[in-house]
């Protein structure tokens, strides 16, 4: 799994590629939490286009990111949900909890 962060005026895009599992999710968690605690960022967009598998520890990282972002009054959004990740969020009833957008620009734009 690779995590790539692009900084924009409107916020940061966290581009994730590869499988998010128990081995790799701590790195995703860390990247999101660091951004969420940076008060200068109004938005964090987690782009999962390159992710076809995410396990419960990855979901937990996203949830923790969302909670931290809320605490710091930052918006956290998800983009690019493939079928696998969508399945998991649906099953765990988190699909409506997250703000899911169509693209990075849609997430950064409104």
């Amino acid at each position: 799994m690779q995590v790539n962060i692009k900084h924009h005026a409107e916020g940061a895009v966290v581009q994730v590629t590869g499988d998010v599992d128990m081995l790799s999710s701590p790195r995703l968690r860390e990247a999101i939490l660091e951004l969420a605690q940076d008060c200068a960022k109004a938005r964090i967009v987690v782009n999962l286009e390159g992710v076809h598998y995410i396990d419960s520890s990855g979901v937990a990282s996203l949830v923790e990111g969302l909670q931290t972002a809320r605490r710091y009054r930052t918006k956290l959004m998800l983009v690019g949900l493939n079928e696998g990740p969508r399945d998991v969020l649906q099953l765990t009833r988190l699909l409506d909890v997250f703000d899911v957008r169509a693209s990075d620009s849609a997430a950064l734009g409104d």
Partner: protein
Amino acid sequence: MVGEVDVRIASDPRWLKLARTLIDECCQIVSLGAGPTRAMVMAANEALSNVMRHAYGGDRTCPIRIVCRRTSGALEVEIWDRGDEFDPFAQRVPPPDELRGGGRGLFLIRSSVDEGEYARTSGWNRTRLRKRLPGEARREALRGHAG
């Protein structure tokens, strides 16, 4: 799928991707279909992660065995570990819609498989996960042509 594939690894999370790839391949051999395949891979991955984290407390050197086989009408994945007795199908599973950190593994396992079965045999936990084969593949299996 003739016979079964029987795999032994150590309890290191670096093996998880290989385990998923292996189980995915078995699902393809029996033509399980995309959705059920994702579900089986997910259930097995969560069960394996729980063994690594909970049954073995993060020790990366303990034995794990994975067996995949086709039974009549189903694909069966067994996960074996030598941790303390733990039946993943006998636990109270809290509702998953809270915004809590962890605690979704057992829920995902139980909602992804068609049948689950646990046994303790000579110091091993054996967790069985089953997905029924779709109609066509199943009929082929019964005629002995599938694969």
